């Protein structure tokens, strides 16, 4: 029966593949491939050509030889931790809901029925990692002994090894129903161990995998143990497929499908919500604190109630974002200007996390429109509670920056600049949330942007919020400039803080007036179209 059932399953899969292939617009697909190849290949070539071709010095070579395997191994250790957590949360497979209902509940051999989804998952992860590894490898190969081709091959081998280890580990963690806290603890221990290997030159758990990435330069046969272990773990994962939890598959199936769609549509809010659901991150049943009586206005009260129910995992994540933002700002002060991008991303993500009351309001447009208060005013009032909640995270960011800089001279400028920077940086998140909200001023299928501009609009949609956060982070440059010029860092910090506060206020004003401005703009464009039509008809 099993074989007959499997034959039916394979036949169905073939038939569905034919359906899908029949539905593909081949010209469109070829055009997309062409665009990706053109821009992707062009970018890689541009970066490659911008790297000098001179081989690095002997000191650097010695440094790479000593620290390279442990440093690269951190990537594998992080992948291992991610895999453990993915498996503990029901990953890495995501079947269609109908496959769970009809195939997994039929008397076919589940292991054999799941082989193809497993192979697809492992293949896609390996392909992505191989391409990434090869690109980075050939870049490294331009400065290191050995040919770029050899480095690309070793980078790809490292990528494939890490990807297979990820897939196998996730399958095993899923099959043994590893609790999430154990997965996180074990994964974290692996990462810490690997970091310790880098710092103190002790053997690290992923040193062999890291060393494999350096085969473009020198080859240690013992490194082959790393891919061997990855394959063994994958085989163990496959052998345990019988223990796959249908509960997890059913839960993940619809979420992953929605997540893919949301990513395609660049719908960041939905991506965040679905990620939380996939991670089974629920708000707390019992709030951390009661809403104080003196908060009387219903909107801030609702905001405080929301923030007071943030789960521990989200608070930990927000703490990490704030701490990382502090580290990046310290790097900027020390001269690494591109670290500003890191700060911008951290503050943007912090903003997305903390603005939950605003996001919830935006998620319920029908209810919002039924309230006897103008939408802009309502949304602005929703900013109050999250802004207050950002205070401790500003302190964390400040402590982290001062600790990284390691000087007490940094305390005063940091104390002045931390809160305004965090607030203005989080305003990038506000821009993203409010821009993605359904537009009540839109009355029909009006589009004043031509389709050719859709790509630019899309890039702006993603880029603008990050740009706002980057502007906030850039206030640190005033302090750095003052330090270099020997003038008062405190004065520069005050100027920067004023700038950041003005930026946050500008975003608040935009939220308040946005609907009105859009309405006026639409009216203006509509009047213009009517006038043009009238002129044409009289000619």
């Amino acid at each position, binding site marked *: *029966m*099993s074989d*007959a*059932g499997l034959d*039916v*399953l394979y036949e*169905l899969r073939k*038939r*569905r593949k034919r*359906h*899908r292939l029949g539905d593909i617009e081949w010209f469109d697909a070829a055009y997309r491939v062409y665009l990706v190849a053109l821009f992707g290949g062009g970018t890689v070539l541009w970066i490659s050509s911008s790297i000098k071709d001179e081989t690095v010095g002997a000191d650097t070579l010695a440094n790479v030889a000593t620290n390279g395997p442990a440093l690269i191994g951190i990537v594998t250790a992080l992948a291992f931790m991610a895999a453990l957590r993915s498996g503990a949360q029901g990953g890495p497979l995501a079947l*269609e*809901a*109908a496959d*769970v*209902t*009809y*195939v997994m*509940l*039929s*008397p*076919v*051999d*589940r292991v054999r029925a799941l082989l193809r989804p497993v192979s697809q998952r492992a293949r896609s992860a390996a392909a992505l990692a191989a391409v990434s590894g090869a690109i980075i490898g050939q870049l490294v190969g331009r400065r290191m002994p050995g040919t770029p081709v050899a480095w690309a091959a070793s980078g790809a081998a490292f990528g494939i090894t890490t990807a297979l280890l990820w897939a196998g580990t996730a399958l095993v963690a899923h099959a043994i*129903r590893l609790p999430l806290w154990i997965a996180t603890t074990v994964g974290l221990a692996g990462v810490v161990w690997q970091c310790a290997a880098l710092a103190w030159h002790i053997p690290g758990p992923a040193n062999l995998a890291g060393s494999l990435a350096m085969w473009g330069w020198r080859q240690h046969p013992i490194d082959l143990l790393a891919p061997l272990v990855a394959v063994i773990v994958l085989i163990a994962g496959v052998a345990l497929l019988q223990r796959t*939890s*249908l*509960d997890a598959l*059913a839960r993940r199936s619809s979420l992953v499908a929605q997540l893919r769609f949301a990513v395609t549509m660049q719908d960041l809010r939905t991506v965040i919500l679905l990620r939380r659901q996939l991670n089974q991150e629920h708000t707390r049943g019992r709030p951390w604190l009661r809403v104080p009586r003196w908060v009387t206005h219903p909107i801030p009260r609702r905001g405080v109630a929301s923030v007071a129910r943030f789960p521990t995992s989200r608070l930990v994540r927000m703490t990490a974002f704030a701490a990382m933002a502090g580290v990046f700002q310290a790097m900027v002060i020390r001269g690494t200007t591109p670290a500003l991008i890191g700060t911008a991303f951290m503050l943007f993500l912090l903003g997305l996390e903390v603005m939950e009351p605003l996001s919830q309001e935006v998620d319920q447009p029908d209810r919002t429109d039924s309230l006897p208060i103008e939408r802009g005013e309502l949304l602005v009032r929703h900013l109050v509670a999250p802004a207050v909640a950002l205070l401790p995270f500003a302190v964390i960011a400040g402590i982290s920056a001062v600790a990284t800089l390691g000087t007490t001279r940094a305390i005063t400028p940091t104390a002045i600049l931390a809160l305004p920077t965090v607030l203005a940086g989080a305003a990038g998140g506000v821009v993203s949330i409010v821009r993605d909200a359904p537009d009540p001023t839109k009355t029909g299928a009006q589009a004043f942007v031509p389709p050719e501009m859709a790509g630019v609009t899309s890039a702006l949609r993603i880029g603008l919020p990050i740009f706002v956060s980057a502007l906030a982070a850039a206030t640190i440059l005033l302090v750095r400039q003052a330090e270099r010029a020997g003038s008062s860092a405190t004065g520069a910090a005050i100027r920067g803080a004023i700038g950041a506060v003005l930026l946050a206020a500008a975003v608040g004003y935009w939220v308040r007036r946005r609907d009105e401005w859009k309405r006026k703009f639409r009216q203006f464009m509509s009047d213009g179209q009517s006038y043009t039509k009238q002129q044409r008809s009289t000619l």
Partner: protein
Amino acid sequence: MTELGTRQLTKTYGDRPALEPLTLNVESGAKVALVGHNGSGKTTLMKMAAGLLDPTDGSVKIGRHAAGSQEARRLLSWLSDTPTFYEDLSLWEHLEFVARLHGVAEWESRAETLLERVGLEQRRDDIPTTFSRGLRQKAAISLAFVRPFQLLLVDEPFVGLDEPGKQALLMLFEEASQRGATLVIATHELSFVKQVSRLLALRDGGLIYDGSPADTDVHNLVLPG
């Protein structure tokens, strides 16, 4: 012979108990209604029996086999309250797939009869994901009955069904029961309860009644605690 047996079956979500330790035997050929208020644990119990949900503790057996095992899957047909379908297969292709997965060789005539009885014969070449709620439920019913089973687990089967649909479903239940199949039906349709031989009532995850529907006031059983 016991068709569905649970032993200290327990399910908790975090700290919240969804089903308290439940030991239960449903004999072969029985027609059982499972009632209870929203959140009483009906769907949790059914899903654990279908092998879709892992118990926190205890065990479920279908016949002599552990729930979710290959043999148990052969014996059990599960009709969910939220039907799922492939987005690229017609209803007819769904029927073919499910029937053949379960080794039904002469499936066409059975599928045609089922579609006729639930009133979907004109929609057989349509994609069921495009159907209305009621039609989706009818499509799911035809898929649950196109394959052989010894035990049918049904969760809220009447939701969204029109009167002819309800009658067709009741007839299908009756026929399955007459040929010796065991039926466990979770429902809020209290008028249906009169037609079963055994009534189980859950309240807040605990079994509060197990007996004949004639010996109790069902309306009291479905009130939340």
